[in-house]
């Protein structure tokens, strides 16, 4: 072998993720014995010749080859590896290597978390993890999301997963965390994984780890984006001319009992005036062809911006990470915005060789405007979407007209966005800490104590001026609500790790913990403020006190947990967990719940017969079974309580108390037993990796009001009744479609996850009997749409049948399901459920040279939605505006929508018109970034520099939108319309 001239090569190895230096990367010259590792600053030096190949390997990163060229100094970035088996996963009270895991856990990588500039932490989960269904709770700035892990189990005890931040379980307010501070999110889904959080684990556990400092160079990161948001689409409403015609039609449908002619008589050439159905303003609009587009008056462009500055670094003994964050979202509807300021300090300190202490502290302050107001809605009495387009917003002097038409119910929506007229502002201050001390008592035995105090103060002020819809010219009203919550968790964890005879790995964890929440709230509600400028700052000045209230709540959970992880020969895995939880919410004797679980894993890849396989680079089978509990009910439910009544004698108050709750000494934990089978695989040297999970869970002792005959004096008692089942299938696949050994080459990777969950009620409080009153049906999901079945519209000539079936010609025809010749309540059917048949997320990432592009799509297919815009009171009554629908007239014998009728405030069987397919595919985000070369970065004094452009919500595919012009299938309850955001961002590291 001819050797080239060897030379001294030095370099630095960093992570492509956050750019930190990597300590301990192995580097060897291919085909030689020479090798080295990087130091704490990621620096290495090695002798190699030009043309030699350096191979770099590091746990959790993709192997990389670098060919030695002319340069003697190299900077190498290692790519994070998605499927790396040595990757460490947070499992609750500790971490485990991915290959040793037995439960169903989905980890969302830093890379995926970073792709979409997220406005809130839970939003980062959407479409990223199979089985984790995330739905936006609204389109208003600051609105939260609903997260469901493997469906709903409970009716009353809550279905929100447990969030654990840096080891401390928190309740509520996961929104307060700055997404930029999050390093990773792991979702525990099956009972084996969640059982360690036994009491709270029934709905899944979301583990959030925040960024911590690393030894080495001090890094300064600045991340920012700014963008503008525009309305995604305006609702397709009738314009003035169409509205006038619709109003006429609504009167053609009604025959005057006096004249025997329709209220709008087409024989009269001057019917617009003579029928009296139009007021002066409307008539003028009709004459002039004038039409007010209320939507465009109410909507403006909004903006979103985010700035994050963090400094991290450390020495051998001390690591730190400090960050400041600012987020501001100004909505497209005036008066709606959200601003969040966050600070974070994470510190870890080693004391000697065996002791470590540290803390992470989050400070957050947010302000949100307009949470409880929505002048955009499709209300029967008020709202932009239903405002008469023939009305006019301003008088000749440019002043807002209080009532745009003579309709005495409807006030001008523009009044709601006059500064100071409607104030709805909430402020939240939060201080959350996680403090720990850890000592290695002797090799393998560690004791760790976590203490997590969490303080949260909410304050909401609400003011409605005189000239608003709420007050209708009456006295101004104001309202103050404050809530103070203190929660803490105190955990003592003992772990012991050992390996016996090289083949037996044992990992034992024991836990004792206390968690408690205490909250106090006050509310004051007044009317008749003398001066509007007082807003809600001087409630004492009001003439009338509407109500005053305060409350207090406290609960405590005590827990003991033990877990044994045993691994034999890297092939057979066993996890045994037992947990005991005591909750103050249950009565003596039922306070404690016991939650065992068992999981088995078999690393097939480590078996002889697969060692040589070129196809499988990983294959693991997992089985688990376990029980988890749910106690998420309000405290004090076991007590026999009285509730307050109001009365007066000649104006003197006569408050009273009446029995309201029967004592229920038998109330106990709601329990979910679940089984999971999982298969993890890696193919072709982990080019394709993924997992398939199948599960079934059965929830018993559902905390559900057991209904009672009211003759007993009580309507219901919260009891453990009912059974529910969830079954599902989850598939996640990550594929490196095109890889390049060259850092500059073209790469394409795809992440796909698909999941389905089937929810079934098996029993209710009266056994296998439907509870029609609460719309709960045996064998069906918890939320179903139960109504008459629309079969079309009654047409001319069908007068007799229409009457027989309780409708009219031009009215909705519904199916006589039981065929008894009349429409009665028994003709109602289960039409569908809000649960999609299939959900999923698809991310495609491309990279070439410095460019990276990612496209993220999210889909929910096969569910049903109930649209508020189509179910509005006064829909098709000829009084308020609405979607431009295909309504029936004598000349338009459609089967779509009934004839407008001014005599009907809702059409006969009008509720059948509001059900739609909830299927949609949303392109949630398209992100195009460019990483500047190091040379350019250095020229501005930075280590790395990246810029990106991002389009959020650029496209939506949905029948509800395209065919029925609905606003948002994800959120069909007439909130703020969705917006589309285009933004530009910057990541720079110094």
């Amino acid at each position, binding site marked *: 072998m001819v050797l080239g001239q060897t030379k001294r090569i030095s370099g630095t190895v960093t992570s492509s993720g956050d750019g930190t230096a990597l300590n301990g990367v192995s580097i060897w010259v291919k085909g030689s014995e020479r090798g080295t590792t990087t130091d704490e600053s990621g620096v290495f030096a090695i002798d190699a010749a030009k043309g030699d190949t350096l191979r770099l390997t590091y746990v959790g990163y993709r192997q990389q080859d670098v060919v030695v060229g002319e340069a003697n100094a190299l900077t190498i970035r290692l790519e994070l590896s998605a499927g790396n088996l040595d990757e460490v996963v947070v499992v609750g009270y500790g971490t485990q290597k991915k290959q040793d895991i037995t439960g169903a856990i989905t980890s969302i990588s830093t890379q995926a978390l970073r792709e979409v500039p997220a406005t809130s932490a839970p939003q980062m989960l959407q479409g990223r993890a199979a089985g984790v269904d995330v739905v936006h709770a609204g389109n208003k700035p600051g609105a939260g999301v609903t997260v469901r892990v493997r469906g709903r189990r409970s009716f009353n005890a809550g279905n929100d997963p447990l969030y654990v931040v840096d080891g401390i379980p928190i309740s509520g307010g996961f929104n307060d965390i700055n997404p930029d501070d999050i390093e990773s999110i792991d979702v525990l889904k099956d009972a084996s994984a969640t059982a360690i959080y036994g009491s709270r684990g029934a709905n899944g556990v979301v583990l959030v780890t925040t960024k911590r400092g690393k030894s080495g160079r001090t890094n300064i990161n600045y991340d920012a984006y700014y963008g503008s948001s525009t309305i995604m689409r305006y609702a397709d409403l009738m314009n003035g001319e169409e509205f006038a015609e619709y109003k006429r039609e609504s009167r053609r449908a009604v025959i005057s009992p006096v004249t025997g002619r329709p209220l709008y008589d087409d024989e009269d050439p001057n019917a617009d005036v003579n029928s009296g159905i139009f007021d002066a303003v409307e008539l003028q609009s009709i004459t002039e062809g004038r039409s007010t587009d209320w939507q465009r008056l109410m909507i403006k462009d909004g903006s979103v911006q985010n700035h994050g500055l963090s400094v991290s670094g450390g020495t051998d003994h001390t690591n730190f990470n400090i960050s400041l964050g600012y987020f501001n979202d100004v909505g497209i509807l005036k008066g709606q915005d959200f601003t969040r300021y966050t600070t974070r300090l994470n510190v870890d300190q080693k004391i000697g060789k065996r002791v470590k202490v540290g803390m992470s502290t989050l400070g957050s302050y947010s302000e949100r405007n307009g949470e409880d107001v929505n002048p955009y809605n499709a209300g029967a009495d008020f709202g932009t979407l239903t405002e008469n387009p023939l009305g006019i917003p301003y008088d000749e002097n440019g002043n807002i007209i209080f009532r745009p038409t003579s309709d005495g119910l409807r006030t001008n929506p523009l009044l709601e966005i006059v500064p100071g007229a409607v104030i709805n502002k909430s402020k939240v201050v939060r201080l959350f800490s996680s403090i720990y001390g850890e000592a290695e008592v002797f090799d393998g035995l560690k004791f760790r104590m976590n203490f997590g105090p969490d303080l949260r103060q909410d304050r909401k002020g609400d003011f409605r001026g005189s000239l608003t819809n709420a007050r209708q010219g009456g006295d101004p009203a104001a309202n103050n609500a404050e809530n103070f919550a203190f929660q803490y968790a105190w955990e003592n964890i003992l772990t012991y790790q050992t390996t016996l005879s090289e083949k037996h790995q044992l990992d034992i964890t024991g836990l004792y913990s206390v968690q408690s929440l205490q909250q106090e709230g006050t509310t004051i509600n007044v009317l008749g403020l003398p001066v509007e400028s007082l807003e809600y700052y001087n409630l004492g000045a009001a003439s009338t006190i509407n109500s005053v209230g305060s409350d207090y709540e406290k609960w405590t959970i*005590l827990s003991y947990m033990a877990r044994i992880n045993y691994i034999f020969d890297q092939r057979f895995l066993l996890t045994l967990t037992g947990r005991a939880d005591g909750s103050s919410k249950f009565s003596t004797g039922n306070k404690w719940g016991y939650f065992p679980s068992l999981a088995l894993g078999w690393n097939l890849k480590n078996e002889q017969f697969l060692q040589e396989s070129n196809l499988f680079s990983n294959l693991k089978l997992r089985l688990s079974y376990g029980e988890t509990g749910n106690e998420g009910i309000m405290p004090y439910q*076991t007590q026999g309580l009285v509730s307050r009544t109001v009365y007066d*004698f000649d104006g003197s108050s006569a408050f009273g*108390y009446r029995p309201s709750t029967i004592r229920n000494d038998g109330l106990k934990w709601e329990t979910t037993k679940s089984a999971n089978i999982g298969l993890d695989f890696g193919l072709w040297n982990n080019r394709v990796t993924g997992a398939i999970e199948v599960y079934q869970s059965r929830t018993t002792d559902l905390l559900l009001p057991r209904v009672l005959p009211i003759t007993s004096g009580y309507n219901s008692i919260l009891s453990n009744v009912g059974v529910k089942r969830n079954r599902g299938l989850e598939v996640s696949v990550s594929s490196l479609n095109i890889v390049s050994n060259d850092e500059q080459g073209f790469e394409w990777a795809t992440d796909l996850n698909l999941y389905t969950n089937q929810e079934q009620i098996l029993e209710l409080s009266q056994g296998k009997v439907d509870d029609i009153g609460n719309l709960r049906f045996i064998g069906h999901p918890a939320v179903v749409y139960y109504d008459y079945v629309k079969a079309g519209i009654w047409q001319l000539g069908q007068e007799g049948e229409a009457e027989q079936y309780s409708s009219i010609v031009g009215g909705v025809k519904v199916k006589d399901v039981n065929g008894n010749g009349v429409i009665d309540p028994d003709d109602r059917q289960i039409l569908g459920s809000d649960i999609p048949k299939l959900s999923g997320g698809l991310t495609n990432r491309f990279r070439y040279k410095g460019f990276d592009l990612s496209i993220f799509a999210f889909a929910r297919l096969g569910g049903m939605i109930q649209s508020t815009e189509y179910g509005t009171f006064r829909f098709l009554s000829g009084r308020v505006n609405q979607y431009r629908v295909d309504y029936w007239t004598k000349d338009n014998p459609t089967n779509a929508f009934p004839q407008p009728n001014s005599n009907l405030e809702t059409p006969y069987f009008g509720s059948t018109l509001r059900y739609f397919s909830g299927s949609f595919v949303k392109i949630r985000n398209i992100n195009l970034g460019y990483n500047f070369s190091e040379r350019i970065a250095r020229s501005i004094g930075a280590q790395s520099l990246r810029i990106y452009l991002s389009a959020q919500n650029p496209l939506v595919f949905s029948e509800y939108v395209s065919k029925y012009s609905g606003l948002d299938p994800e959120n069909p309850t007439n909130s703020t319309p969705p917006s589309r955001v285009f933004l530009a961002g910057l990541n720079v590291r110094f």
Partner: protein
Amino acid sequence: MKTVNCLLFIVIATSFFSCSNLLEEDVRSQITDNHLSTAGGWLEGVNASYSFLRSFYGINENGATVTVFGTDEFTNGFDGGLKSFNFYDFGLNPRNGVVNTLWNNLYVAINTCNAVISRAPEVTGLDEALKETRLGEVHFLRAQYYFLLVQLFGPVHLTLEEVQGIQTSAARAPVEDIYATIIEDLNFALGRLPMIASDYGRVTKPATEHLLAKVYLTKAGSAAQQADDYTKAADYAKGVIDNYSFRLLDDFITVFEQGEGEKNDEVIWSIQNSKSFITAGQTACCDGGNTLHTYFLMKYDDLPGMQRDIENGRPWARFRPTRFTLEQLFNRTLDDRYEKSFKRVFYANRPGTYTINGRQITFNTGDTAVFVSDREWSASELSQVNYNVFPPSRQNERVYPTLTKFLDPDRPDPQEMRGSRDFIVFRLADTYLIAAEALMSDNKTDEAIEYVNAVRRRAAKKGNTAEETLANQKQMEVTADQLDIDFILDERARELLGEMTRWFDLVRTGKLVERVKKYNPDAANNIEPFHALRPIPQDQIDRTDTEFPQNEGYQ
């Protein structure tokens, strides 16, 4: 190693840490039911027993819906979703929310009364006399609640003890037993209640007698009838009229004055409401105060020249007088009550120029904008007035004369539902008419006529002179041969129009089907004899372990 030792100590300490008391519930913002056994708590239980009265009388539209709709007096207006009670159609079924809510409320009320009564013996620290009086009040209230139940539903579940624990059995006691309980409770109350209550609004001896009179009168028309029911009814009614200082006010409509005037000599007992929202209830709609002001009011606010304001009220347009009420019931020339019972004019509060009947009319604030007329107008007459005239032929579900008795212009804003009017349940004019009905039914028509005429004389229009007034009064009087049950019902309609008693009156007298068919065309086609009872809520039937049969005709 010091640190390690220290930490080890914590571990050990932790495992011995006593945790039992940590899991005790810390109840602070809630009150447990032991409270009702304390002296103060027991008195609050008495107050609570009163609170359910509001739930029937005016807190929402339910009580009025089952007593005003579907009668000869009123039919449906434009708005609202409870018209089935007027139509007697398929919507009036066991799953109807109104029936359910009323039923629920009455049984929660009864359990509250039962709790107060059951716990009385163990309550100490109360003045015995006060305790006896309060106990009398609660017995009265329980009787009142059972009386409403038996009139609405017929045989119902009878329970006189506070329910402890889960109870899933129930049975329908015969009407006789229910009336026996009601009378027993009222007799208990009679011996304990004062003539004048310590607090205005608490029940009294005369209120008990009035209720006894009504109970006997109703019982006489029920399956539980006994021979002396009418005599007893008449005796109790006469007792109320003769033995106390109540009197018929000179002017019929002053009985319904708002504010201080609502406490007057004609009121025997009224459900209390006040302007304080703290005692009215927490929310703005349908959970507090007296909301009756909205239901009879026509939809004036979308008419030219008008907009909704406090003075005119919030128009929910539920109850519209039948043509019978408007055109046949009153002698408009003599009877004062027609003019005074109805509001027919609205004054412009939204100035501007409007097209009315093809003419441009300009309204200034305060001009007459709307006139709901009781006669037809000729075209030339119409062309001479500058307001919107609604003769009978133009009246409809939206526009009709509005009953004035419950209007409440004394609310802080136009949307506020919580009115402050007391609701007068028992008033002396009713007592007179009970006496008349009982005496007539007992074949003492000559005596009965005196009581009818007393009410009628008061209703005579005032003349310009005392003589004219006297002449009018004379003309209002009727003679014994004119008196029959239909006349009594007509007189009750004239006097007590809308006062939440009509449906009961028609059922009691067995005239429901006949008069509804005759006078309420919207209900005429559907009403059947079985409609004299309301359906038992399906929930009650479904949730009861034992047999709980439905009323005939409903399914």
